[in-house]
């Protein structure tokens, strides 16, 4: 086991898969010579050369489209959109083309494309560089959506994403790039898409959280355990496919569900988890399902405002207490 950062896990997964399969190529804005604006992909250009690692113009439609076309014709491209917010300039290529081409073609085509992007707030990047954008992609069947929360999952899930024959949107949380964690030393650490991780065991309430919100949930759980309330924390790891079985089993045990997400309330993944539970397991619920989200918020620049808006420990504790009615 080595300890590496979330950031290092990205480049390791890329390098391992590019080593393993010469059809894997990688391109995006300043990802090559400069190693990425978040310094996530250094060394790949030097190692795999200018044909397989390319810097692009600022042309997100052309980038995603090139990924789609290359994937359809036999490569296995990984592309980077830098900030996930920029997916909005090329959403058509992602949700209308990449996601639907297999279906529209009656299964003639497959699109083994991985789209990486950095999302998430907390770093003072203001409203257009801080969003969590899972909803855009979850709402488009045909895509898979991956939201890794730690270095081992980044490594194992990105490798799975690259090997997957579907278009996969792989969302990295930019504030987590410096977080460290242990990863196996061998080159076959593959985490399957669609299997949730039970991060913490508990009986009183099920908390479903992703990425940076896992840490927030942990803080809340630590404090609540002092009051004798034990929380079960589940990290779905991938939002499509979504491992509802694990979540429902947990809710059947705890009787209470809180979701913690760093996205806007309406349409967020929390509502999907919550409604699936209320549909499939309502009789297990012993209290309201409470979502902790950005509400109808836009991410502000100002530090105290940003920290106030993004779910934090106190809000998670309040949510847990509300569902438990304590």
């Amino acid at each position, binding site marked *: 086991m080595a300890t590496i950062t979330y950031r290092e896990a990205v480049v390791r997964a890329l390098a391992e898969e590019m080593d393993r399969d010469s059809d894997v190529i990688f391109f995006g804005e300043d990802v090559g010579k400069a190693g990425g604006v978040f310094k996530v992909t250094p060394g790949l250009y030097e190692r795999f050369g200018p044909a397989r690692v390319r810097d692009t113009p600022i042309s997100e439609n052309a980038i995603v489209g090139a990924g*789609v076309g290359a994937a*359809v*014709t036999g*490569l296995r491209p990984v592309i980077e959109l830098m900030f996930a917010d920029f997916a909005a300039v090329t959403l058509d290529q992602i949700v209308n083309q990449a996601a639907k081409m297999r279906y*529209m073609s009656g299964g*003639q085509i497959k699109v083994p494309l991985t789209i990486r992007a950095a999302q998430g707030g907390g770093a003072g990047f203001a409203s257009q560089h801080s969003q969590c954008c899972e909803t855009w992609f979850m709402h488009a*069947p045909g895509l898979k959506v991956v939201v890794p929360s730690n270095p081992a999952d980044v490594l194992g899930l990105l490798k799975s994403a690259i090997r997957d024959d579907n278009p996969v949107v792989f969302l990295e949380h930019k504030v987590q790039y410096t977080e460290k964690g242990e990863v196996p030393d061998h080159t076959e650490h593959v985490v399957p898409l669609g299997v949730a991780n039970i991060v913490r065991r508990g009986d009183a309430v099920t908390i479903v959280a992703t990425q940076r919100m896992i840490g927030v949930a942990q803080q809340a759980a630590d404090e609540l355990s002092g009051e004798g309330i034990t929380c079960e924390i589940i990290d779905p790891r991938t939002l499509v496919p979504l491992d509802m079985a694990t979540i429902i089993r947990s809710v059947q045990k705890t009787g209470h569900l809180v979701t913690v997400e760093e996205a806007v309330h309406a349409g967020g993944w929390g509502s999907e988890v919550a409604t699936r539970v209320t549909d499939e397991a309502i009789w297990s619920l012993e209290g309201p399902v409470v979502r902790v989200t950005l509400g109808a918020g836009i991410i502000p620049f100002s530090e105290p405002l940003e920290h106030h808006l993004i779910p934090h420990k106190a809000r998670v504790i309040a949510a847990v207490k509300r569902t438990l009615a304590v």
Partner: protein
Amino acid sequence: MSEPLSAAMRQQMLQRMIEIREIEGRIQELFLENVIRGTTHLCDGQEAVSVGMAAVVDAAHGDTVTCTYRGHGHALALGLTMRSMVAEMMGKVSGCCKGKGGSMHLTDMPNGLIGTFAVVGAGLPVTNGAALTAQTKGTGALALGIFGDGTPNIGAWHEAVNLAAVWKLPSIFLCENNLYGEYSPYADTAPVENVADRACAYGIPGVIVDGQDAEAVYAAVKTAADRARAGDGPTLIEAKTYRYRGHSRTDPAAYRPEGELDAWLQRDPINILAARMIADGQITQAAVDGLKAQAATDAQAAIDWALAQPHPPLDAVHEDIWV
């Protein structure tokens, strides 16, 4: 036009144009009879672009094509069968896309057709991706993207042509300038006289060709193909052509000035090639008429066949989404 093509190639182009003309007419009828639903975008008048282009594309060696929803002619020219296409438009399971795509979404990978894209401009970035595969793997294949005269106004078009130029991709951008984007005349929505004039912004060749002359289209695409395969990058080709019908469905095309259609009918692509072949002693008028009669028979057979095909089973609606 450079040197004339072989009699056999001419014959094939002529026959295919006749088939396209015939089936488009039948599709329009079927649409009006509600046998084909949704919408259709027919290409009568533009057949020379389809067959000129297709004569260059070598799917067996990895060449690929993307085009627009106005794609029936291109699909047939590349080799899709009438049966498979008509069944697709009827939503039948035997259609090339199992009935899931319909008129606007034809894919035929064995013949190199990645798709007929229904969002304006969306096919061109994808064309570059196919060209990227060819470049990365060194296959010598090319990727050809077809679009209309209204399309250069959209961002995806610009980004695609630009990226192909910067990366010297083996892409060919082939415009069918049929004078209108939906109901808007070209000049109302574009700031330059010719689509090809835009090539200057990308440092690539911009070529104008008579879109009613299949051999001229072939020659222009062939030159671009040689360039692409040699690693010299993309070419923008503008074929001046005309659609005889309205934009889609039941559009009567009332926005067209009096006499315009008649003038273009004088330069019909089928007649142009047929006359040239007759003059060169390669075919007789009777043989041309025979091709037309055969196309009508084939079209009817394809339609009858497609009508008899079943719809997909209802469960199929949830298949083919993920691999």
